[in-house]
């Protein structure tokens, strides 16, 4: 219980600040005050986490930090745990949440949903931060429920029948996934008598019950991460939600459950992981990359296209498991994947915001009817294009570096076939991005006097600016590779539980 | 004594499960609903027997709660299924 380490006394703030924000925005009655406090709390959150932001990485930040909530310590109480992996995700969450909060303040201005949006939004943020800090198997279950139910409620905020149906399906899938996860946790507790990640990492062995638990935990989390055969709920949910919600769902929510899968496979239950299992996950990921791109290409709606692109991009993340299984390259593979997560989060959020702006301005997002839309929405299309550059993986962008790292790892671990998948994925992504751009930049010669589409709601300049900031961030990430990698290195690697165990 | 109580518990339990027959057979919704009330009543009795068997007086709390709340479903049923009769 080394709570006195630098910065640690503030660790629970990552969860507590969003919870307080949720309560405050629930009790506020004025819509204006609600959005202002929303932005205020987002800024506060970023500054509370700032010690890690400005810290010279590797200097005196310990490889991993634990915080014993309630002062009891691991097996009896619940611990929080922070390492490089968690730091990167926490920071990118805080940054994204700030931008998306500003966007939402404009997006929901004057709408009655705002009263429910802000508390749910903050609950979701609390759940995300909680998952990144979690060090207890059952605590993760509760956090997953927070994330799941808050996401469902946020999707349903759109209020259309499609959105509510998608939300209901999302809710059922979420509950199913949580219960599978909980059964896995029950088996782990039965077998090892502890819920603490570090202790589990210490005790874990390769035996049938651990395999069963790992399978159940993974199945539950895969449902929530939407890896290919279990992705059926994602496109409709992400495409029908309000724009800022779509952005956070694609950018962060699916990553939270991926983060947990990575924790379980590479660290907590790593002795029980077999090469076959890793290969299988990698294979599913590869199929997801190809299939997601094809589905995105064939999508009729812009937001649906972006949602299918998420299915494809999630596939890349699962290449982590076969690449890391080779042993020597675990750290390198993890670096690549973490980089990929951040790059994708920024690019995809920007893309969803741009799509949301187009949807708002045109009143629809039917791709076929978006012919020549660049004439009316140059800014949104520009943002879409920049984010697309990162998604495809063209230099100079975060996506390029992420794919470059992945290719490097694939080659150096002698698994060149994953490199082929990465390249094909990039090529296919280019196809669907350019399909949209091509259509949008076509010059349409309209009969004079006919306004092409009625503008249903004006897009505030601030909304465009937020999307633009995210897109620029996605590109700028390509120039700051050093910084992110060293930040990740502060926690040395993902396997901090098994190293720092024995408390 | 313990054995005797255990046997009584077993008997009561089998009778409770026999009440399932009515839930399955119906024929009206009210029949099925009333069978759950049988479940509730027998459940209270069983909880009290278990309280004696395990020498855990606090288990009477559970019996109390069950006795209070088992009618809730029935009341909800009465309120929500006007059309069954």
């Amino acid at each position, binding site marked *: 219980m080394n709570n006195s380490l630098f910065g640690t*006394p503030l660790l*629970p703030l990552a969860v*507590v600040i969003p919870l307080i924000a*949720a*309560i405050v925005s*629930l009790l506020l009655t004025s819509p204006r005050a609600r959005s202002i406090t929303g932005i205020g709390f987002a800024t506060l959150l970023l500054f509370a986490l700032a010690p890690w932001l400005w810290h010279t990485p590797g200097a005196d930040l310990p490889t991993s930090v634990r*915080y014993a*909530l*309630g*002062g*009891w310590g691991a*097996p*009896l*109480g*619940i611990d929080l745990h922070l390492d490089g992996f968690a730091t990167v995700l926490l920071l990118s969450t805080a940054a994204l949440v700030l931008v998306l909060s500003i966007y939402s303040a404009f997006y929901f201005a004057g709408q*009655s949903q705002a*009263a*429910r949006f802000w508390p749910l939004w903050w*609950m979701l943020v609390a759940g995300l931060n909680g998952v990144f800090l979690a060090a207890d198997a059952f*605590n993760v279950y*509760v*956090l997953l*429920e*927070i994330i799941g*139910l*808050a996401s*469902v*409620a946020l999707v349903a*905020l759109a*209020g*259309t029948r499609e959105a*509510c149906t998608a939300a209901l*399906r999302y809710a*059922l*899938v979420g509950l199913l996934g949580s219960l599978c996860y909980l059964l896995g946790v029950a*088996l782990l*507790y*039965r*077998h*090892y*008598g*502890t819920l603490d990640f570090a202790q589990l990492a210490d005790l874990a062995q390769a035996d*049938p*019950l651990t*395999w*069963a638990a790992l399978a*159940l935990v993974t199945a539950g989390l895969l449902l929530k991460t939407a890896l290919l055969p*279990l992705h*059926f709920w994602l496109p409709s949910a992400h495409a029908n939600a309000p724009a800022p919600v779509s952005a956070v769902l694609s950018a962060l929510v699916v990553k939270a459950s991926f983060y947990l899968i990575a924790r379980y496979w590479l660290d907590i239950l790593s002795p029980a992981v077999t090469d076959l299992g890793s290969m299988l996950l990698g294979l599913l990921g590869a199929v997801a990359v190809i299939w997601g791109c094809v589905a995105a290409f064939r999508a009729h709606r812009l937001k649906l296209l972006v949602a299918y692109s998420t299915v494809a991009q999630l596939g890349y993340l699962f290449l982590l498991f076969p690449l890391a299984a080779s042993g020597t390259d675990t750290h390198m593979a993890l670096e690549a994947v973490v980089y990929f997560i951040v790059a994708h989060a920024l690019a995809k959020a920007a893309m969803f915001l741009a799509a949301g702006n187009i949807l708002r301005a045109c009143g629809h997002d039917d791709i076929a009817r978006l012919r020549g839309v660049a004439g009316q929405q140059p800014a949104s299309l520009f943002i879409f294009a920049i984010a697309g550059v990162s998604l495809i993986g063209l230099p100079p962008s975060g996506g390029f570096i992420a794919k470059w790292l992945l290719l490097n790892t694939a080659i150096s671990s002698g698994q060149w076939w994953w490199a082929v998948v990465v390249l094909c994925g990039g090529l296919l992504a280019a196809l669907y991005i350019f399909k949209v751009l091509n259509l949008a930049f076509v010059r349409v010669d309209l009969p004079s006097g006919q306004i092409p589409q009625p503008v249903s709601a004006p897009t505030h300049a601030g909304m465009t600016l937020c999307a633009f900031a995210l897109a620029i961030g996605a590109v700028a990430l390509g120039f700051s590779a050093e910084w992110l990698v060293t930040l990740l290195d502060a926690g040395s690697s993902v396997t901090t539980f098994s190293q720092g165990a024995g408390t | 004594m313990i054995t005797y109580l255990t046997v009584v518990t077993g008997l009561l339990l089998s009778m409770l499960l026999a009440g399932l027959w009515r839930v399955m057979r119906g024929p009206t919704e009210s029949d099925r609903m009333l069978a759950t009330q049988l479940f509730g009543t027998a459940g209270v009795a069983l909880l009290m027997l278990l309280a004696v068997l395990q020498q855990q007086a*606090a288990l009477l*709390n559970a019996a109390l*709660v069950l006795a*209070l*709340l088992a*009618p*809730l479903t029935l*009341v*909800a049923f009465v*309120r*929500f299924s006007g059309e069954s009769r």
Partner: protein
Amino acid sequence: MFREMSPSFTDTHASTLPRVARVLVASVITAGGAALLLATLRTDKAPPELAVLVSEQLATSGVENPVTAVLLNFRSYDTLLEIAVLLIVAIAMQPHASSQPRIVAPSTNNESATNLVLTSLLRWLIPLSVLVGGYLLWTGAYAPGGAFQAGAVLAAAGVALALTERYQFGWQSAGAQWLISAGLAIFIATGIVSGMVTGTFLQYPVTYAATLILVVEIAATVSIAAILLQLFTRLARADVTSPHTSGASS
């Protein structure tokens, strides 16, 4: 086959899955379940080290009931988040009618039927439930019972009240907002204040642990009861909403 996860509202007993898919699903689940069963029953349970630890530390927890000690002291973070889960659902199901000054008001629906049997049953049931709820809350410190149980019983009393159709609940009113968020708010406040004293979030000073836990429990009970009641009344439409505003649409 997974597309069929989209639920329907018409009661067709036959599932929409084709027969082949159903057989496939059934056999996969059976095989998986059998493997799981075998793996579980062939492996010994871990010795109850954690249970021993709990009983050792019980004296410093402030309560005598080990389950309450785990819920509200050792693993209070979980309970805090769990109340947040309830609050999320309550917020999601909130109405947005604007004029709801009071939480409970006499029903405006003058057709509310007066069923003699129902009302006289509830006349006994409701006060008794409130009594038992309070009793469970109080007894939770040293015997089975506690915030969840008390909250659920209180909520049940409220549900019974709603079922009489004599009262309506206004969940958009300021009072209701405070009521449903009080549990989480006071829980966090207690955690922060005690954290300022002891240096760790949610760590209660041993001498005040009992009092602090009771405060948290009372607040949690009230909020849990209010939230559960809100969930029911929103579903059963026993709350004040102007027509055409039900639903998540604006």
